[in-house]
């Protein structure tokens, strides 16, 4: 995520990227897995570290909560789509607030986007407790052949990473 360049300020581009991440958030909130996956590129990585990741450290050498390559992400979505995963049956009720959207880098044909989010989740399948999931989100977006945006990477650095956590089997 490191970039020395000032954030992109082109209003049209910012608006397009905000619309994309808000759509992504709404589909995740409503567990619309197929439509969410349509936003994903063929080599997407989905990463939720289990603690702060120091600069220069390869997450491949550490345990993460989630460290999905595209194949494993597909497995995750297929399993959720069966409707038979106890951990999401019934699916959690969610609403997330996404803010502080910044485009940090627009070089190399892709956009590095940072946002903060708070997901409110009611774990209706078990305890019916309200769980709160604050975190910093980094997206790597790029354009597909039809010029629409696709997600090549999403990393969610949870504020609570490293602490004992309840299930996070929904799309964070």
């Amino acid at each position, binding site marked *: 995520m490191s970039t020395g360049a000032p954030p992109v300020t082109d209003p049209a581009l910012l608006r397009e990227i905000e619309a994309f991440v808000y759509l992504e958030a709404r589909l995740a909130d409503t567990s619309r897995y197929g439509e969410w996956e349509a936003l994903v590129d063929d080599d997407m990585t989905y990463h939720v570290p289990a603690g702060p990741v120091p600069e220069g450290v390869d997450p491949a050498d550490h*345990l993460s*909560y989630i*460290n999905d390559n595209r194949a494993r992400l597909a497995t995750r979505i297929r399993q959720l789509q069966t409707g038979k995963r106890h951990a999401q049956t019934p699916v959690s009720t969610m609403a997330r607030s996404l803010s502080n959207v910044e485009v940090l880098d627009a070089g190399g044909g892709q956009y590095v986007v940072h946002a903060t989010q708070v997901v409110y989740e009611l774990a209706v399948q078990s305890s019916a407790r309200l769980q709160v999931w604050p975190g910093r989100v980094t997206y790597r977006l790029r354009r597909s052949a039809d010029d629409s945006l696709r997600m090549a990477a999403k990393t969610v650095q949870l504020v609570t990473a490293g602490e004992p956590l309840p299930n996070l089997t929904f799309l964070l």
Partner: protein
Amino acid sequence: MLGGELGNSSRAVDWGHGHVELDFRPPTSGAGLVGVQRERVASYCEALEAARGTEAARRSLWDGPPHGLVFPNLFLGELNLAIIEPLSATAMVHWHTAVQFDGVDEAFNRRILRQSEAAMGPGAFIVPDDAVTAERMQSAVAGVQPGWATVPEPRGWLDMSRGLNREADEPGGRRAALISDETTNRGFWRQYRTVMSR
């Protein structure tokens, strides 16, 4: 259960004193300890055979995966170590980490980490389903029925009798039944009651 419970020869085993195991022998997937077929981890398999002999290596690699609880709170599953930390009578933390080996190539250790992420932790494919089951059991013990339940009983209930009719004594004081039976839960809680009522 996939294939029907009678089509599976794996067993739930109560070793006594609260130590319990899901004994996955004979392995059906062929994935064993390392979670993948031999050709993907051939160099490790060959090295283990050279070090320990073919038969011992076969048992370590393919008779399993190991999956046991050492009373009261140590869980050994595949290449993971887990401990249960009680917080109160109704809450616990399930801590885990993955085994990493000295003297193997980086790809092998990374494979174990990815395998652990698939199985263990709050975002994995296995333990979160176990966690939901445990939370539902806790609700049942508290006499609370979850809001989504459709059965008419006003209170929760918990039945751990599954397989009681087919649980068999084995040499060494073990008791065993089908892997889908509650032999392991009964074995654990019997010892828990013994210890806690001293």
